């Protein structure tokens, strides 16, 4: 393997992680929409879901952890909050990979809705614990719903990326 092929191989293999990182940054774009910020969908979470099913080998648990931590540091939330959810999602999907691989998109979408609400509730409980205060769960639930609604869009884009960059 020459140096260039090695480089090409490496570049292709970091694509899943890179797309998640790009979506993390894109999610921070200040859009002048009222009430948008608190409920803005977590596109990066949808991307973690996508890659965990399609190419879990290229998005290992540690990468999920690092990307989640990156999101946490940028958002200013307790570090580990999204990292934990990313790792857990990857693990749940990984342990049932055979089931998920053979499903139609509508079933995958249904599962994602359940996972989004589960993740939202888990984060809400953790934030209440760590802030020693009752925080309203409603924005987290709306956000979970919006994130779930964006899965087809994110899947479509990432599907294209996968076909283009990772043909095998």
């Amino acid at each position: 393997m020459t140096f260039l092929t090695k480089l090409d191989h490496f570049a292709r293999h970091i694509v899943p992680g890179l797309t998640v990182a790009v979506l993390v940054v894109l999610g921070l774009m200040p859009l002048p929409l009222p009430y948008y910020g608190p409920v803005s969908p977590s596109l990066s979470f949808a991307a973690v879901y996508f890659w965990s099913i399609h190419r879990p080998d290229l998005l290992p648990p540690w990468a999920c952890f690092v990307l989640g931590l990156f999101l946490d540091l940028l958002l200013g939330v307790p570090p580990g909050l999204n990292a934990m959810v990313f790792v857990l999602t990857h693990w749940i999907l990984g342990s049932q990979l055979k089931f998920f691989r053979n499903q139609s998109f509508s079933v995958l979408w249904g599962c994602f809705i359940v996972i989004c609400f589960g993740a939202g509730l888990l984060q809400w409980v953790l934030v209440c614990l760590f802030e020693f205060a009752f925080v309203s769960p409603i924005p987290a639930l709306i956000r979970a719903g919006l994130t779930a609604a964006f899965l087809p869009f994110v899947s479509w884009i990432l599907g294209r990326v996968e076909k283009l960059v990772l043909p095998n």
Partner: protein
Amino acid sequence: MKSGQHGNTRVAVSLRSTAQRFSVVLLIGASMVLMVAARIDERAVNFVRANTVDALSPILDAMAKPASFAARVVEDARGFVYLRQENERLVAENIRLQQWQNLALRLQAENNDLRRLLNFRRDDAEHFVTANVIADTSGSFTRSVLLDRGTEDGVNRGQLAMSGEAIVGRIVEAGRHSARLLLLTDTSSRVPVLLQDQRARAILGGDNTDTPKLLFLPSDTEAKEGEWVVTSGYGGGVPSGIPVGVVTGGENGTFSIRPFADFARLEHVRIVDFGVGAGDLEIAERPE
């Protein structure tokens, strides 16, 4: 031979899955430890956060530009549609503001005279820095934005940020070229305030809704709907009399405040360093 190879593969696969499971447990444990550690040593976390944001600020800055351009286009289009109504509204407002300006000038002259009589020392804001909002980091549990100015521009932790004449929030983390602004609506935001008419002191505490609440208001005080809330200057760092918001209603002795600042359309903010002492700003009168 073949069965031996098979056995080896099986062992390798099971070892791999055990290692993976172990790493998942380890990473989840690390997340928990990090959350607890962040609670214990906030300074270290702030340092890491500020440096991460700093490193990324050129990218965030570049990305905020098209967003703000799009916002301006939409705003312009809306402006054209309502040009006529907007003009009528502005003419009427101009007449009203001119009356206020006359009053303000008269009051300012009177104020200056009285200050001279009292030998009052005027502590103006030490400096202003205008910063662009480069990222909206508000989420389900936080209300904050990132700014493109940091310690090298004189922006430091604890400083106030204003939009127009109203308070938006406070700087909670400052890197060299970026800073995090905690909005008034965040759960951890606390600003000492005063009911302008009744002179009753309270703390304005955010609760992640659009209407922060008045905390520690003396029990015999009933905030009236429409009453202005201004900073009290208690606790230092924040001068008194800066407009914060207006009382919108109350339930069971808890009063909600609608901040004057429009958080959905924050593009630029003014970061004000008042030093340790209190300062005072231009007159802000309540329009009738």
